[in-house]
């Protein structure tokens, strides 16, 4: 198993009702696998998973990417700074 931290921002945080969670995920889980797991376990976030942006250790990550050990993950909508 792999113990990771998952941060939520903006709309994702509102829907999750938490700034971050810690969770155990299978070794070699991909970003797509993480989205599937979140959809299953957090119904409030299910609708967000099709358009969510995901980062691994503060870099943008895509569906095929494998989550490294003890990663810092984040989920958020498209950014809107300025």
């Amino acid at each position: 198993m792999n113990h990771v931290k998952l941060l939520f921002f903006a709309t994702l945080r509102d829907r999750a009702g938490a700034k971050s969670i810690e969770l155990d995920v299978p070794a070699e889980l991909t970003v797509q696998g993480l989205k599937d797991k979140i959809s299953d376990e957090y119904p409030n976030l299910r609708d967000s998973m099709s358009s969510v942006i995901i980062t691994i250790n503060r870099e943008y990550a895509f569906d095929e990417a494998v989550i490294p050990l003890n990663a810092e993950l984040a989920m958020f909508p498209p950014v809107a700074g300025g």
Partner: protein
Amino acid sequence: MGSCPSLPRKFMEFPTIFSITEDEIDLNNLLAKITLSSTGAAAIFTGMVRGMTSRGDAHETEYLEYEAYVPMAEEKMKQVAEEIRARWPTVEGIAIVQRVGKLFPKTPTVLIACTAAHRDTGVFEAARYGIDRLKEIVPIWKKEVGPGGEFWVEGDYIPKAGE
């Protein structure tokens, strides 16, 4: 600062400032930090909270509440500065600052400033590129609060691999 022989001399001399802050943006202080003895021009973009919007969906704004994924945002600001330097090697100093928290109309929220020896060196385009890229890849969000309620403003850019 220790010596860093792997970096070109120029990069060590040219100041780059990037930060997420809850404090007021101090233009004069930032400008002083990115002005060298060889500097003769600065292009500065600043954005502020607009109280009355007429373009598109007309509405009034009471305030905006900004938040950022701070450590990643500062890393991505540094990346934007590196992209500016790669495209406009004549740019001398760069400052990229985003203010976060609850910000009311007329308040400056973001500042991008680039300096160069002369104004015809691409320094205007460099600052424009900086604000455009900040809005694409720097993880910052804002919630708009007004008479009609509150909603998150969402961008439309999906980062690509390597960004």
